[in-house]
């Protein structure tokens, strides 16, 4: 993991006015802690180490160990402690290293954070923000690479966000902290080094809505998080082939912005859902079902899904790449959707499930 860290306490504004996703997230936390003394950061190695992925580097020096709180490797205890602190007015940001580790705190997230408000008849609000890394692509193998955000999106009482752009990394935290309910923020590990010019704050579309990242007319490619860059790359390829793909970034995985998805599909009549989670029972399945429920008569082709292969994510580079959605598998799915299949190529992993395939 250290390989992905930058040790230099990079100022928010990197060279040429560009900001990395990592810096944007750090800047968001810095801003939040400066603005509100109830905000504090707690998690494994967030302080002296600077965060497993370097996100909180330099914050300890500015805010001290009380507010940049290194926790023992006790996910359940420190996530639960965050929930308890939130109950009595604090605004904790709890960082969990990876989504796989979050399973050790699942009891607290599901049975307490998501549940207390309802179970107490509306008495207890839990304004906690839990950040964690998700996703594969860095050869971290099967216990550091999974995309389980779809599981969390299953849970009523949670808000689940997936910032896919530098701007969202920068601006989603503040409204998440202002939310009186628990918010989970999933940061795809492949995005930390992505850099972009940061737009000014106004114009930020909030945390409720999906956003069309690239307009198009022939097929809606619906995705989020780490798959967004792949979807945009696929849209470029498709454009060369004369297919105009609209790329929609979900941003909020719960609640889902049905209106934006529906509007897009009503225009394009075709949808490809790209989700790094496993296909079975996936968020992609949910979106596909909703499109079929709400927009059946707009659909001119079956909804396509591009998901991860149903396998624990393997280490070897080629195996890992083959397990994940990629631009070419997205292109292939989009072509199927518009009824314009590309000439068969041996190296194109067509992930469309075939009947009877065991999985």
């Amino acid at each position: 993991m250290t390989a992905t860290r930058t040790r230099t306490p990079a100022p928010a504004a990197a060279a040429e006015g560009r900001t990395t996703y990592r810096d944007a997230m750090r800047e968001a936390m810095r801003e939040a802690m400066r603005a509100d003394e109830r905000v504090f950061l707690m998690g494994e190695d967030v302080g002296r180490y600077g965060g497993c992925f370097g996100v909180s580097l330099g914050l300890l020096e500015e805010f001290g160990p009380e507010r940049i709180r290194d926790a023992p490797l006790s996910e359940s205890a420190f996530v639960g402690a965050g929930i308890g602190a939130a109950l009595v007015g604090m605004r904790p940001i709890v960082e969990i290293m990876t989504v796989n580790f979050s399973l050790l705190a699942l009891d607290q997230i599901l049975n307490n954070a998501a549940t207390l408000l309802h179970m107490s008849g509306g008495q207890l609000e839990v304004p906690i923000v839990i950040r964690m890394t998700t996703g594969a692509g860095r050869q971290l193998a099967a216990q550091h690479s999974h995309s389980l955000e779809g599981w969390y999106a299953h849970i009523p009482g949670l808000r689940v966000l997936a910032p896919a752009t530098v701007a969202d990394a920068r601006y989603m935290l503040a409204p998440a902290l202002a939310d009186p309910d628990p918010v989970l923020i999933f940061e795809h590990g492949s995005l930390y080094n992505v850099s972009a010019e940061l737009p000014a704050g106004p114009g930020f579309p909030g945390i409720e809505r999906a956003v069309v990242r690239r307009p198009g007319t022939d097929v809606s490619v619906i995705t989020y998080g780490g798959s967004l860059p792949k979807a945009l790359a696929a849209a470029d390829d498709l454009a060369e082939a004369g297919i105009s793909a609209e790329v929609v970034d979900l941003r909020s995985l719960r609640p889902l912005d049905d209106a934006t998805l529906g509007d897009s599909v009503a225009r394009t009549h075709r949808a490809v859902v790209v989700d790094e989670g496993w296909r079975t029972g996936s968020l992609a399945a949910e979106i596909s079902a909703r499109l079929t429920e709400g927009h059946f008569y707009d659909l001119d082709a079956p909804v396509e899904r591009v998901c991860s292969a149903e396998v624990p994510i393997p280490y070897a580079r080629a195996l890992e790449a083959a397990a994940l959605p990629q631009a070419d598998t997205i292109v292939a799915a989009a072509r199927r959707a518009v009824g314009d299949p590309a000439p068969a190529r041996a190296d194109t992993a067509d992930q469309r499930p075939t009947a009877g395939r065991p999985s």
Partner: protein
Amino acid sequence: MSSTRTAHTPRPGSRVRRDAAHRLALLESMLRVRRFEERCVELYSAARIRGFMHLYIGEEAVAVGVNEALTGDDAVVSTYREHGHALARGVPAEAIMAEMFGKVTGCSRGRGGSMHLFDAGRRFYGGNAIVGGGLPLAAGLALADHMTGRNRVTCCFFGDGAFAEGEFHETANLAALWRLPLLLVCENNLYAMGTALERHQAQTDLALRAAGYGMVSWAVDGMDVLAVEDAARRAAEGVRAGAGPHFLEMRTYRFRAHSMYDADRYRDKAEIEHWKERDPVEGFARRLLEAKELTGKARDALEDRLAAGIDRAVEAAEQAPEEPVETLLEYVTSPVEANRS
């Protein structure tokens, strides 16, 4: 460490008030819990109360004694066997009964039932039905006080079963490490549901093990309300003084089944009878009678008063409206207007 885990004996000079009125108040508080739960059994049998219902009968001295050490500013986190904790904390019997009836006037608006009583105003942070699940939460309440400099105690009840959960050990370590103002009260009734302590713990001296986390840790006779009160007061004092978390192992016993009815195949009738001889309520009443602090007549009057109060609670619960089904989806997320700044 051994000095921190000697079984507690009341000492002269302890600040526990020893007047008769106080003792009578303790008896009344324990009797209220006992009678309330006995009525619950009746109502459960009549299907007025449904779901899981775990009775506290036999353990009343713990809730009542510990509560004496807490102020209204302190917080309580409890388990699914929490009627006693809630009543001792002052949650009205009407609100608890209505909750078990699933009524709109219930302390959790019918969303929680017996296992999930909440009263934020009284800083009663609920019945938690995941064994050990309340512990990290309690640490968080204490952490907030610690960070904001408020001198308050968070008291967390849990059972011997929770000692097998990682969440206990994670929380004990975290709280001791960060010196959180946390009072950990382990109600060791010797059974994790139906599994005896010696069948689920390699080392059954729980106070000894808690001491291993660097906490002040005592074992207490949980059937003696005065011993409980005394120990809790001293522990809470230590917590308030900034000495970090304190651990109390309350040795106690439940007289009834784990949840409403069970066949009690996992324990001897003789064992139950043996513990019943040490009934914390009747034993204490006997002591007060012998000390002439209580008369038979006063006891009868007390019983009548408690019964009338419970009657009122049941009547009110019966009369209370059902929560309209249209409100089903309320309280899943906060209303949009609330608090969004």
